[in-house]
């Protein structure tokens, strides 16, 4: 996403215009932003001017070397104009950003900031341009329809993240991370913003209610043991095949040897 967006806004004049527009909107209120992004009341609607100013300081000190002053992007990092507060909170609060090194995929590391600092950075990035907002507590509560969420998860997510969210490999060193233990707000924000190589699932594709159902499903499989007994990390036929070839056949061979051996 970031690469393609950079291409479409290459002109510095256009970028400056967008920044100006973003600043005006953050000062003037978030009414336009919420109308444009079809989500419920954003948490960061309460982000104050001081919070944005604090976020800007943190951004300049920690993010601007790659994402550029005012988030316009550099050859080392994509522009953050229009990625929204949700993207910033996901990346920083999950420990993916600030990045340690470039590579096929940004890894999860210990979180580098306090909650207040993360809120400030998210508020600042959200103020750069219209983008997805951080979901409210109600939007991410795991009280939706787990069965429907399971169906949606298998259609939209399971091919990469595995049917029970155990994660899986992609091409050239990239991977879809396991979703077990991932906080609900990160799951929601990832669907909404499409971090790194994950595609975007906007509210027209998966409505906020459907996103909630998916979170409900993931939290259900996380807390309820598999009905089929030991799930071998949910990795599917490869793990199960390896288990039966080594453990199952091992037992059969041991028994056969015992049957044929003479007693002492």
């Amino acid at each position: 996403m970031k690469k393609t967006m950079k291409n479409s806004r290459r002109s510095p004049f256009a970028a400056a215009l967008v920044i100006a527009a973003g600043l005006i909107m953050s000062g003037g209120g978030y009414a336009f932003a919420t109308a444009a992004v079809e989500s419920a009341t954003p948490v960061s609607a309460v982000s104050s001017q001081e919070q944005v100013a604090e976020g800007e300081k943190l951004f300049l000190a920690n993010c601007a070397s790659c994402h550029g002053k005012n988030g316009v992007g550099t050859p080392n990092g994509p522009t953050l104009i229009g990625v929204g507060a949700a993207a910033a909170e996901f990346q920083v609060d999950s420990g993916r950003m600030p990045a340690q090194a470039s590579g096929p995929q940004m890894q999860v590391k210990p979180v580098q900031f306090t909650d207040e600092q993360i809120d400030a950075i998210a508020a600042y990035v959200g103020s750069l341009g219209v983008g997805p907002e951080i979901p409210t507590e109600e939007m991410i509560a795991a009280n939706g329809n787990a069965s429907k969420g399971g169906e949606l998860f298998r259609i939209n997510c399971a091919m990469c993240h595995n049917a029970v969210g155990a994660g899986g490999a992609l091409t050239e060193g990239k991977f879809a991370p396991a979703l077990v233990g991932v906080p609900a707000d990160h799951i929601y924000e990832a669907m909404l913003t499409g971090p790194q190589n994950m595609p975007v699932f906007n509210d027209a594709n998966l409505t906020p209610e459907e996103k909630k159902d998916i979170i409900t499903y993931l939290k259900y499989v996380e807390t309820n043991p598999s009905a089929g007994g030991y799930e071998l990390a949910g990795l599917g036929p490869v793990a199960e095949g390896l288990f039966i070839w080594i453990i199952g056949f091992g037992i059969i061979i041991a028994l056969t040897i015992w049957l044929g051996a003479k007693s002492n």
Partner: protein
Amino acid sequence: MSEKAKSAKEHNYESGLAVVAADKIKDPGLEPHRVRMTDKSPAHERAANRQVAALFILSAIGSVAAIVAYFAFPLTDDLGTVRANTWWLGISITLGLFGIGLGAVHWAKTLMPDAEVSEERHQTRGSDEVRARAIEIIKLADQESGFTRRKLIRRSMYTALALFPLPAIFFFGDLGPSPADSLRHTMWRKGTRLAKDPDGTPIKASDVTLGSIFHVIPAGLEDLHETKLEEKAKAAVILVRVDPADLIESEERKSWSYDGIVAYSKICTHVGCPVALYEQQTHHLLCPCHQSTFDLVDGCKVIFGPASRALPQLPIAVDSEGYLVAQSDFNEPVGPSFWER
């Protein structure tokens, strides 16, 4: 005199073709008998006795436990009860049967006599009298039935027997319906709306933002009943929007996309798995079964893996209400290769 020489003498095999090498490996015979601990020491014998009994008692406990488990862990509407039910029934039934087996084998190995005995096989060749009598019976049967003598009957019977299985070859044709040209067509038609899987909501072009992926079924699939899954298996499509500047389109396919929105068959051309692992930055589409990788911005050409053909593209357009519609069916069969392709 060795066994071999003895039997050669008995049946007069001297004129046969078998060559007996002079330096062939000698039959090592039985290994020397080893006395078991249970034979030497009464303490060991008593221990083995207790072990066998313990295994049988373990089996008995397992069988009783299986009955207890059946009532203690009933299956209810809660799926979680399956786990406890299967686990305890499995463990206890295993103990019940495995205990008997282990006990029986342990008993035989430790306590029953273990002196090695060899049992000679009897000759398979019948005696000359028996052989002569058999030939006599066959000849008599031939004579009485006239099998050799009555040529007409014999040959007509051969003909009847040879022709009898022939009709089956034609009947086998009815074993399954011929796929006819159903492999070449899907339910996409000119004007069929692209709808969201699974609920069938039609998709507007404006819904598909940059970097989005939609898993698509043809509108109207929900109304089908018996053929729903067959049609879905052929018609499933993925819909992605990329920057139009990134798209590499051949001249005749320029009109098949809409403002960077492209639709491709989701069925892998290798063996038909759903290709749906989409990487937003690289635009790679990866098949989870055998890692065939398709380049979405370059006509879904194969860039890695065992698939040999690009994914078929669904030509799309936008109708007057802004919904995405198909321009036509796929212009080639979807999914893996087949004989007549």
